[in-house]
């Protein structure tokens, strides 16, 4: 009988009282939502495809069109370029955190989540984790593309992987910043438009594509020490040697600076993003 199956036999969902149960649920809810967000990526493969097309075009454009006119001293331009492309790609990738959250807010899914007995932090954690996984995928593709156009990391596999780890961490920290953008935007289109002016100057007024020394002197200070450049230089040092940065600084110097930025961004933006999530009605 239908009414019998509809009758509440279990009195609601389990609810938590202990700290460990809360932690366990935070992890399991985060995994559930990470999986949900990644499933969405696989259901719209076009989106992932086109998000890798753009950086591939950048690689080809700079490698074969502009590269000849850019002088990078001790290393071939292709080796100089790829670390910059990596950071650019993951930074644009972390913009998807803002788009995803704005979309969930717009479609009312977050409203449903708020009325469920799930962990409060899981919505943001699940989103940023999924975008991290997405960035891992994109970095693998870009590495393959890089190797195909002649990119030759010279510092060994471990050092190369350390560089990849560093930029993924940095992108994860950026995701928390873009979470705030997404939670503040009225819709996903605006979230994307709002994110762009923030990423664009940081990507181009940087050491990503050209040595900073070729820029006007008033711009060099910013272009050398802003967080994107610091991470690019760290990645470059780890992948093709510290001399490639053309700054005379050591690998450790750049790695420490990059990690400091990453940790600083996380410390500032995680609490701010959580607060924004709580107050957003």
């Amino acid at each position, binding site marked *: 009988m*239908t*009414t*019998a*199956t*509809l*009758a*509440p*036999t*279990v*009195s*609601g*969902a*389990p*609810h*938590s009282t202990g700290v460990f149960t809360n932690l366990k*649920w935070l992890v*399991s*809810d985060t995994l*559930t*939502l990470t999986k*949900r967000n990644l*499933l*969405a990526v696989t*259901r*719209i493969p076009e989106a992932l495809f086109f998000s890798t097309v753009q950086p591939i075009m950048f690689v080809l454009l700079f490698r074969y069109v502009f590269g000849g006119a850019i002088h990078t001293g001790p290393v071939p331009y292709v080796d100089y370029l790829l670390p910059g492309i990596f950071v650019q790609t993951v930074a644009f990738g972390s913009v998807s955190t803002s788009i995803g959250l704005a979309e969930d*807010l*717009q*479609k*009312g*899914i977050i*409203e*449903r*989540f*708020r*009325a*469920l*007995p*799930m962990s409060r932090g*899981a919505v943001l954690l699940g989103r940023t984790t999924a975008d991290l996984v997405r960035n891992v995928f994109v970095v693998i593709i870009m590495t393959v593309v890089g190797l195909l156009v002649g990119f030759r990391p010279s510092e060994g596999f471990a050092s190369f992987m350390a560089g990849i780890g560093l930029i993924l961490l940095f992108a994860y920290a950026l995701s928390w910043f873009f979470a705030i953008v997404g939670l503040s935007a*009225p*819709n996903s289109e605006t979230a994307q438009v709002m994110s762009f002016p923030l990423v664009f100057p940081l990507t181009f007024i940087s050491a990503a594509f050209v040595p900073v020394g070729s820029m006007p002197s008033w711009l060099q200070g910013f272009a050398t020490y802003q967080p994107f450049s610091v991470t690019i230089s760290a990645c470059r040092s780890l992948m093709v040697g510290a001399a490639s940065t053309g700054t005379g600084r050591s690998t450790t110097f750049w790695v420490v600076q990059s990690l400091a930025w990453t940790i600083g961004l996380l410390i500032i933006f995680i609490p701010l993003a959580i607060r924004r999530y709580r107050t957003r*009605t």
Partner: protein
Amino acid sequence: MSIAIEVDNVQKTFRGKREVRALDGVSFAVTEGTVFGLLGPNGSGKTTAVRVLTTILRPDGGSAHVLGNDVTKKSALVRSLIGLAGQYAAVDENLTGRENLQMVGKLNHLPSSFVATRAIELLDQFNLTDAGDRPLKTYSGGMRRRLDLAAALVARPTVLFLDEPTTGLDPQSRNDLWEVIERLVGGGTTVLLTTQYLEEADRLASTLAVIDHGKVIAEGTPQSMKANFGATVLEVSLPTIDDAQRTGAILDGLGSHASVVNGTQVEVTVDNGPQVAMAALRNLDADGIAPQTFNLREPSLDDVFLSLTGHRTEVEEADEDDNLTPRQKRKKKRLADLEKALPIQTGEYA
């Protein structure tokens, strides 16, 4: 009988460019195992009340309890006892129906084996078995609503909140959903339902509260409400304003309610439609008045309002759009779309 939902003098003001007192001291109580209808026009505070009760929104003042638990102090416990289905069909576009149900089950911290069985069961009950493994993009509006309701039921909640469950649906889907809700109540679930449709409240709810400008302005059973403003509305349109005035005077003498004359239109709410209609036609004929149209219709929410407050439900002006939250804008757009598709259903409420 014990009380499942208790709302006591709850207040909520939204501060923005313009202050909106969404809830201005709302109080009501819902008995366990019954359906309670919160009836009101757009912007009356229905959804805000549901959002407070489902712990999504913190009230500024007053108190709200679900099964004896304060919604602000024991919000985690309350969330484990309730289910919420909204007018926005908050289901994930990119997942299949089954995946949506499983996700909600997991987020309710239910064992995966239970969730898998429950998903099959619910897909079956809501006639979605065939569509269960298709992505939601292929679902119709009615299917989405059914899935949304199914998602609210995954954890077998004791108290269910349905925020305008059929707004925007075609009459057939609306009927289907009504049948599902009726079965639920048969199973003993307490339901709080908000609606703009008197017909819906009448069919589903055993107790009603009419809400306007964040206040409860009337409370009772659908029968007592109807008795208060008559069961049928007689609408007559006349060729001239003078005829309309005379018709108004004639109709005044026939029903228990006063007639309302608006230009060449006359309306009166009556308890016994056909009898009054026949008497009216005889009297009009005797006075030599020939109506252009002559209709008997079911009373609408608008009629209830007119009878309770003396004013019609208010229509939001376009220039107020800036003050609307994204939620309200979505709702407005949906209603506008709906109006285009179904001019008869929503015109007077939107």
